[in-house]
């Protein structure tokens, strides 16, 4: 690619990304009533999306070979247990990450 082609490619990627970010706000601008259906979606989509994001983080884990996803699963278990114990964000995130970094070097 030439420099101009590279700039066009980057600009096009920016345009598409901006479109996905702004669309809901363009459809329902300030002052316009948000339909009940979208208010409902606004409440129920997010918890589902967090499930999707967790799966997304694990998408390249191979459960059939290598360490069989054990470092990931054990570290997630550690995160859950630390969360239930401490009920905060910081301890489970640090604890789970340290646990993972140790496990991938051992397994």
């Amino acid at each position: 690619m030439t420099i101009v082609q590279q700039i066009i490619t980057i600009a096009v990627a920016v345009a598409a990304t901006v479109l996905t970010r702004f669309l809901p706000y363009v459809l329902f601008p300030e002052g316009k009533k948000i339909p009940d259906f979208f208010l409902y979606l606004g409440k129920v989509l997010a918890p589902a999306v967090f499930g999707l994001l967790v799966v997304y983080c694990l998408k390249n884990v191979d459960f059939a070979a290598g360490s069989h996803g054990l470092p990931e699963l054990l570290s997630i278990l550690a995160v859950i247990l630390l969360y239930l114990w401490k009920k905060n964000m910081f301890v489970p995130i640090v604890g789970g990450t340290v646990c993972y970094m140790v496990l991938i070097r051992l397994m």
Partner: protein
Amino acid sequence: MKKHAAIALKAAFPFTIPILTGYLFLGLTYGVLMSTSGFPWFYPMITALVIYTGSMEFLLVRILLSSFNPVAAFATALMVGARHLFYGISMLPRYRGVGWKKFYLIYTTSDETFSVNYSAEIPDGVDHGWFYFWVSFLDQMYWVAGSTLGGIFGSLITFSTEGLDFVMTAMFVVILMQQWTKSRRHVSELTGLIGSALCLKVFGPDRFIIPSMIVIFTVLTLMRGKLEKNMKQEAAVSTYHSAALETSGAESVQKGGSGS
């Protein structure tokens, strides 16, 4: 106004600490990939700033190395960015009435910024608009800083940081747990987890996000009547529980933040 901004910055920063770690590391990886692919250091810096979607940027490296095809680049970015639609719908009511900051808040929507701004219980007396702004701004700066540093010094890093990216997984798990403890029947959470896992199995790691979104949207739309009834029933009970939970959560994050 200055005072509002300062108070909100103090309240927002602790929530962004996991993202500081994750974005610096992932941004660094992106910068290294760009520089080892032969692009100058300001490429990762500028793309980090204007595109600001990690997954798209990693794909962009491959796209820039292949032959010129703007239509394919546009379609790829649309697909990768499609989940922003869900974030937009979820943040619609919350981002209302924040004034000039709104444009910036929408522009800097990311998985992590959305997660924090959606789930954080903003302390009393803190201006919501400024809180959202600082989370968005700090996160974007972490990402740009990581990407730029990666582009400049990437090839010099020798110590093993392998596995540090798990910080993002851990953060999403914690936020999912927060959501989980707020509801009794967990229909949304389970739809997201099981639906996406099935789609991952069927469509593979590179194309499962859009099918997952369709499954989530369809299931939650079909179950609207039942779920709205549940929400009303749970409202009284769960407000009490989650309020207690979130207060202790936010406090500990702040303690953890200032202690480190």
